[in-house]
């Protein structure tokens, strides 16, 4: 029993509730940022505990493991929680400069905190129905955030976003129902144990596919048709936090279910994951290269990276899983950074269409070079983060004999680099065409660069400090590769 496990969920929930009652704009911002900072501290403490004594488990309400709901903080989940909170703080800094007073008054800060609570809860829960509940907490907050402000485009896109997610929630409930009918438990550790006993036959494979569909839809794995529209509708800060966290939660759920629960028949499930990942990479890359405006480049970069992470899961060796952990941490930071840069650029240039921009390097040299550095971080050039993760995933892919997919992944890295460099060249270097819209206020744009610099610094720290991180990542990947560690920690046998 360790009550610290629940704190990363409780702190944002409490803050969100308190923020409903707060009226002053200054206090809204201060309390919001402070709570996320506290959350980072608490999670760091949690990580030190996990490092010292292994996986931390909390049985809610004192109901013991297979019967009650458990929260399980293993190293993987804790690392994700801390990265998510760090990114969330920085996006919040960006948000309070751009989001506008009207949105802030309409409970933006509360929904933001509830979103973080849902994300942290999804990472920490050890019960598959509870995962559904935290997914919904996260999604409902995201519905509110995506529509807040109610411009025409937001209304149109949020309706579709909600419908897609409602549908996938229905399928989530259906899959949980089938799973409970077939196995008779919902605790993830107990599920793993029982499925190992009864063998993963045809029925369980079908249930696994249903979960693949549900989580794939949320993660944007192959079923990403909803993603470009919804992620380009809300203001930059909101779509940054969506891109950084929401798809990652789907990815996390996929990784958790396919390393802990449905890992008995990798020839079927993981092979399928591999090809879906390959298709996602290809389609995402094509979208990014073909995009004519900044938002298109941004959203299709998200899609491609989802494919890349799942490719590591499909390779399913311990080395590849280490790569997945590294890359997931990197991707949370870098996607937020990319979207924030995009947001700053949209304000600076006044338009997202690449054709009608240019020459912004004169006004905003820092923004331009930040974008240049980020492009290399996305491609995975050392010393920035992303290099080690990519290396390990590709190595794992080669070991698993997936030569075609490794080739696709390598080629896509190059093309994604090209897609962002194209934005850099056309937006910053090309002579500005006739009739280009006037840019935003210089002072406003300059004030937006601080969060971006912070995120880039974190990305560099993740890359340079990979050695120091290695111990934690090894533990995280080890738990994924050896489900017995997780099971014995939860069920205490």
């Amino acid at each position, binding site marked *: 029993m360790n009550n610290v496990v629940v704190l990363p969920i409780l702190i944002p929930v409490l803050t969100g509730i308190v923020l409903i*009652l707060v009226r002053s704009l200054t206090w809204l911002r201060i309390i919001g940022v402070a709570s996320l900072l506290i959350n980072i501290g608490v999670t760091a403490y949690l990580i030190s505990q996990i490092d010292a004594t292994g996986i931390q488990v909390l049985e809610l309400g004192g109901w013991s493991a297979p019967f009650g709901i458990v929260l399980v903080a293993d190293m993987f989940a804790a690392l994700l929680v801390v990265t998510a909170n760090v990114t969330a703080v920085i996006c919040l800094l960006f948000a309070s400069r751009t989001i506008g007073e009207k949105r802030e008054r309409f409970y933006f800060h509360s929904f933001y905190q509830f979103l973080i609570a849902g994300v942290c809860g999804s990472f920490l829960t050890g019960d598959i129905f509870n995962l559904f509940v935290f997914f919904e907490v996260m999604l409902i907050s995201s519905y509110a955030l995506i529509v807040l402000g109610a411009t025409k485009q937001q209304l149109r896109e949020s309706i579709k976003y909600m419908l897609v997610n409602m549908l996938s929630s229905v399928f989530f409930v259906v899959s949980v129902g089938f799973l409970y009918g077939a196995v008779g438990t919902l605790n993830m550790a107990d599920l793993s144990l029982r499925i190992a006993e009864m063998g993963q036959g045809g029925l369980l494979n079908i249930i696994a596919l249903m979960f693949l569909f549900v989580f794939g839809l949320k993660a944007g794995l192959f079923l990403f048709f909803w993603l470009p529209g919804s992620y380009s509708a809300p203001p930059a800060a909101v779509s940054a936090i969506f891109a950084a966290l929401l798809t990652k939660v789907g990815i996390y759920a996929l990784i958790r279910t396919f390393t802990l629960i449905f890992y008995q028949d990798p020839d079927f499930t993981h092979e399928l994951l591999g090809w879906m990942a390959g298709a996602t990479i290809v389609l995402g890359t094509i979208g990014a290269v073909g995009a004519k405006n900044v938002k298109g480049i941004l959203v299709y970069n998200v899609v491609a990276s989802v494919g890349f992470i799942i490719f590591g899961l499909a390779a399913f060796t311990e080395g590849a899983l280490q790569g997945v952990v590294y890359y997931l941490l990197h991707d949370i930071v870098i996607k937020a950074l990319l979207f924030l840069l995009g947001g700053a650029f949209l304000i600076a240039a006044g338009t997202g269409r690449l054709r009608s921009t240019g020459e912004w390097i004169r006004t905003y040299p820092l923004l331009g070079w930040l974008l240049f550095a980020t492009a290399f971080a996305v491609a995975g050039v050392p010393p920035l983060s992303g290099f080690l993760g990519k290396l390990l995933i590709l190595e794992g892919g080669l070991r698993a004999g997936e030569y075609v997919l490794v080739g696709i992944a390598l080629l896509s890295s190059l093309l994604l680099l090209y897609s962002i460099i194209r934005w850099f060249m056309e937006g910053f270097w090309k002579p500005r065409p006739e009739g280009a819209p006037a840019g935003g206020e210089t002072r406003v744009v300059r004030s937006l660069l601080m969060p971006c610099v912070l995120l880039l610094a974190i990305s560099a720290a993740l890359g340079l400090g990979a050695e120091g991180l290695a111990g934690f990542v090894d533990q995280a990947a080890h738990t994924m590769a050896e489900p017995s560690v997780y099971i014995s920690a939860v069920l205490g046998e």
Partner: protein
Amino acid sequence: MNMNDVILRTATKVITFIILTFSLYMFFAGHNNPGGGFIGGLITASALVLLYLSFDLESMKKVLPVNYIAMTAIGLLIAVATGMGSFLFGAPFLSHAFGYYDLPLFGEKTELATAVLFDLGVYLTVVGITMTIILAIGEDQT
């Protein structure tokens, strides 16, 4: 509303109190029997909706100047705080305790449970959120 709703109004005055009493009964019956904060809250909300239907929004705002969003927040706060109360006793989050006490008015061996506090939070939240939803839909007349 212009229609002649004397019957509705007269009936509402009586029925509302019956519903409210029943909702209180449901609230306290909870935990070991069917009932509890959730269903109690829904019943209370239905009584309030009946009031809002038979008397117009403006006069109801004067009679019940309640900010339902704040009510929701307070309810949530109570529920979460009750869960966190277990931290003080070194028990896992959301642990609940109960005991039997002799109280003057309620007779001997009255069961008191901390779950009632949690239910109070749920009750306030449910009433607050249901009314917020219904008023949000209903307030728009144009």
